[in-house]
């Protein structure tokens, strides 16, 4: 049984069918990439999985239990953490305090949560700025903070919404390493990403969404050469891109 099972989920906003019957699985320990053009319904799908939106029909199951009717904080308690595409740091709080909020999902004690937060900060490489307010961080560090906070809730599954967008290649590389390290701890990852190199190197499986529907799913190499995917999203150029950029292909 998969850790996350999305079963024929639909969501309509007025005249727009944002998600039109999506089914996908994520196994424990797996890294799955979710790609697709803008407006394909990727972020809406994240909202549906994390409880910020309720599906019109269909079901989301986490570890075999339906999350129907659960609020986001309850979904989090069930072991799912997410980041936001537009990062949402607690601006006036320090980096440590930010991460501590996540850690408090598993303990009531501030002391234990603080220790846990320090541990996570060391893991993501933010320990040098633990006592600075989140307001002053660079975009790369804010993305890291977003990740650290989510990790502190001890998830079984991590949903990452474009954590690499806007980063330099070096910074992207470090986030990729971080994702691998997180996955090695036994945490499954479902990531939305437009940075193809990252998706293709990281993911064991890629799911392609277009106009609210899954149009392809499979190993990165197969996806990169799928004519339908090329047509809808990657464009002709990707298949003929220089060898160095085709990691995973």
């Amino acid at each position, binding site marked *: 049984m998969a850790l996350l099972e999305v079963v024929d989920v639909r969501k309509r906003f007025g005249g727009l069918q944002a998600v039109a019957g999506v089914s996908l699985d994520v196994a424990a320990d797996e890294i799955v990439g979710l790609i697709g053009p803008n407006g394909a319904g990727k972020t809406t799908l994240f909202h549906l999985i994390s409880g910020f939106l309720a599906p019109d029909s269909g079901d989301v199951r986490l570890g075999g239990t339906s999350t129907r009717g659960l609020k986001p904080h309850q979904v*989090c308690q069930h072991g799912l953490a997410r980041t936001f595409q537009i990062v949402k740091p*607690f601006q006036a709080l320090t980096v440590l305090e930010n991460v501590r909020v*996540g850690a*408090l999902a598993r303990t009531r004690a501030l002391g234990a949560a603080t220790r846990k937060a320090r541990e996570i900060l060391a893991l993501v490489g933010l320990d040098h700025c633990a006592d600075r307010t989140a307001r002053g961080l660079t975009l790369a560090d804010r993305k890291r903070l977003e990740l650290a906070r989510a990790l502190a809730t001890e998830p079984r599954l991590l949903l990452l919404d474009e954590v690499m967008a806007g980063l330099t290649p070096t910074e992207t590389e470090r986030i990729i390493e971080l994702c691998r390290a997180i996955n090695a701890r036994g945490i499954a990852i479902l990531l939305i990403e437009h940075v193809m190199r990252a998706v293709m190197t990281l993911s064991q499986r890629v799911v392609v969404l277009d106009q609210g529907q899954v149009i392809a799913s499979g190993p990165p190499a197969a996806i990169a050469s799928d004519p339908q995917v090329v047509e809808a999203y990657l464009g002709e150029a990707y298949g003929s891109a220089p060898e160095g950029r085709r990691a995973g292909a």
Partner: protein
Amino acid sequence: MTRGLPTSREAWLGAATVAVLLALPAVLTSYAVTVFILIFFYGYLGQAWNVLGGYGGQLSAGHAAFVGVGAYSTTLLSMHWGLSPWIGMLVGGVLAAGLGAIIGGLGFRFGLRGFYFVLLTVAFAEVCRIVALNTDALGGALGLYITFTGDPWQLQFQDNRAYYYLALTLMLLATGVVALVERSRLGAYLLAIREDEDAAEALGVDTFRCKLAAIVLSAFLTGLGGAFYANYLFSLQPNAVFGIPLSVDVIIRPVVGGAGTLVGPLLGSLILSPLAEVTRIYFTRPGWAGFHLVIYGVLLIGIVLFLPRGAYPHLRRAWTRRRPDA
């Protein structure tokens, strides 16, 4: 940094301040004692507001509703059933907390944020005021008057200094409660909610319950304050205890002093309560009515422009810079 644990120097400063305040009535004139009572009382109310507005970021502009409920219920219980205000004030606090639960339950259940929550709180306070104005059992527009007996069991004292110590105790008590909240999971969660509610929710924070807990605690403390108000002034009028001006008086002190900090409401009250008193004396002459509100307005604009986080964070920085603490 908006907060931070007190340094040992600050802890000593706090203890010294309390010691001075305990000894002060011995040398103060009766009028000065009155001014200090106002400082403590509004500092207390500001601290109660701070739990919800300062830490939780849920701006209530209707805290007069809780003052009024506390004041009226204590007084009515005393008048009709002879219940001592010492016990009545707890009942008043509980009733105010109940009203807080209703306001919070409605507002937070339906996801009212920002201005919409402000409007909801104002609306509830105004409804309370109008109900009190038009209910004969509550004394209508004339309000209620308490007969002075000077009986301490009736929370009445011949000596103004007794009120001084009572108000000081209330203020220190509220500050202690807020200090505990600040060092608890609830406190950490409230700050998170203030900064970004969706992010907090995603991190496992039951935002509805936290906000509800904050408004119930805030309303309870404010209701106790209402009981003090009634038994200090011996009279209650709907327009005074349920009115918008009182709600503004409650908010403006923590905002000026530093909302979401432990010292902010106290500092704000220390600055504003004497100022309010002075302007009330000098500007009550014909033609000057309401001028103290102009001063409030100008001060608020100045604070928002130049010290958007209130006076305390700046004071604290100046203090620690001047004398670096080991």
